């Protein structure tokens, strides 16, 4: 049975249905009073401009919610593989640095979640051979534009920030977040072009 829990007096949280983040955001934003939606790996939060009113039927309907009708975008990011962790990642995965770069650049990714910092997109589709746990010691400062991997994800840091992911390179053809918002959006198909 679909249930939800209060997240304060203007939001609710519930278990994520087995749908894409894009489809969930599109459907939940249409609920009366909803102003914002955040989709995480296992949870969804809906944010209201008034005390929330949610029915179980609304949540259950998300399991069959249609995808956002807007076309999926294809985004190319110009990449230079110059990251400080290339040799370390190569050693841990038992491959050459050239192999690591080629593997990362050959894959097609999808934006499946956004969080952590404005415009920070969690990209799925990382080749299994590159899956590594986070670094044991996070860096106090990762430069903006850094291409990074950790667990099953790759991402590009939109802003300089602390970070515990392995750094493979840099996106060199523009900022990931600007006055018009985030360069990557939920659902985008993303390729890195060396």
């Amino acid at each position, binding site marked *: 049975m679909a249930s939800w*829990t*209060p*997240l*304060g*007096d*203007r*939001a609710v*949280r519930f278990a994520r249905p087995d749908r894409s*983040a894009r489809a969930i*955001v599109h459907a939940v934003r249409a609920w009366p009073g909803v*102003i*914002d*939606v*955040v*989709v*995480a*790996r*296992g*949870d*969804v*939060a809906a*944010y209201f*401009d008034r005390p929330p009113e949610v029915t179980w039927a609304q949540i259950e309907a998300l399991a069959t919610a249609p995808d956002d009708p807007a076309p999926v975008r294809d985004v190319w990011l110009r990449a230079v593989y110059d990251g400080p962790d290339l040799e370390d990642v190569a050693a841990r995965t038992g491959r050459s640095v050239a192999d690591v770069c080629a593997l990362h650049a050959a894959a097609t990714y999808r934006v499946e*979640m*956004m*969080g*952590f*910092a*404005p*415009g*920070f*997109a969690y990209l799925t589709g990382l080749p299994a051979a590159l899956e590594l746990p986070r670094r044991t010691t996070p860096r106090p400062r990762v430069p903006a534009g850094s291409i990074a991997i950790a667990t099953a994800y790759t991402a590009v840091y939109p*802003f300089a920030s602390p970070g515990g992911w392995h750094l493979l390179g840099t996106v060199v053809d523009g900022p990931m*977040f600007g*006055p*018009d*918002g*985030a360069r990557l*959006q*939920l659902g985008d198909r993303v390729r890195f072009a060396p």
Partner: protein
Amino acid sequence: MTLTVLRALGLITIQDLGRPGRMHEAVPPGGALAIDRLIAANRAVHNPDDAPALEILGQLVVRAERDVEVASDGRPPRALAAGDELTLASEPRRVAYLAVRGGIAAPRLFGGRGALVSAGLGGVIRVGQRLQTAQLARVRPVPVPARPAGPIRLVAGPDPDHFGPGALDLLIASEYRISPTSDRIGTRLDGPPVPRTQLPEVSRPMVIGAIEVPHDGTPIVLGPEHPTTGGYPIIAVVTRADLGALFAIRLGGAVRFTR
């Protein structure tokens, strides 16, 4: 130009009601730390509630370059003549607002006119800066209802499994102090650590006012620039009506909670 900044100590930014509607892009809601105080200042000079005003976490000295009507928080408006200087400090609170008749002019970026430091939107106000006023039409102000005095009200949850029995009771029975390390992202509370279990942390959606508890047990109340997702469990969430009162308590000041 209308105002020239002669002195800016601490963090001074232009703020409005924020940028709702972009959290799915990991953009926090932003906006004024104490929304009710921003609204009170705006209404005092017949501005709409969402008119951009100056948020002062520290001290600001400005000089009027022409006759202008200003107001701070809920106080009555005052007229500044060209050449008048005005000093405004957030003390004895943590934050004060300076509203100018017509609003402060600021470009609309990404749905809002205020600074969102974490997203590089809008800037920090600096000495020598010249501020223009916008031409927002006069509105008839409605009084700002006074919040009843008393402890800050909480909604329990949503992660009770991550806390021992009595953790919320301890939070409510104890007096906490606003840590000087607080910022617009989070307000840290000095006081008895909140006991929590060591269940694995899962990155989950966050909300303004959420009281998250890291490993050391120091509660952090998320502010307008909070990350949209986070891994620390939430013991309770401050009610929306009490957020401004909590965030206006001066650094080092005492706070108590209630259910």
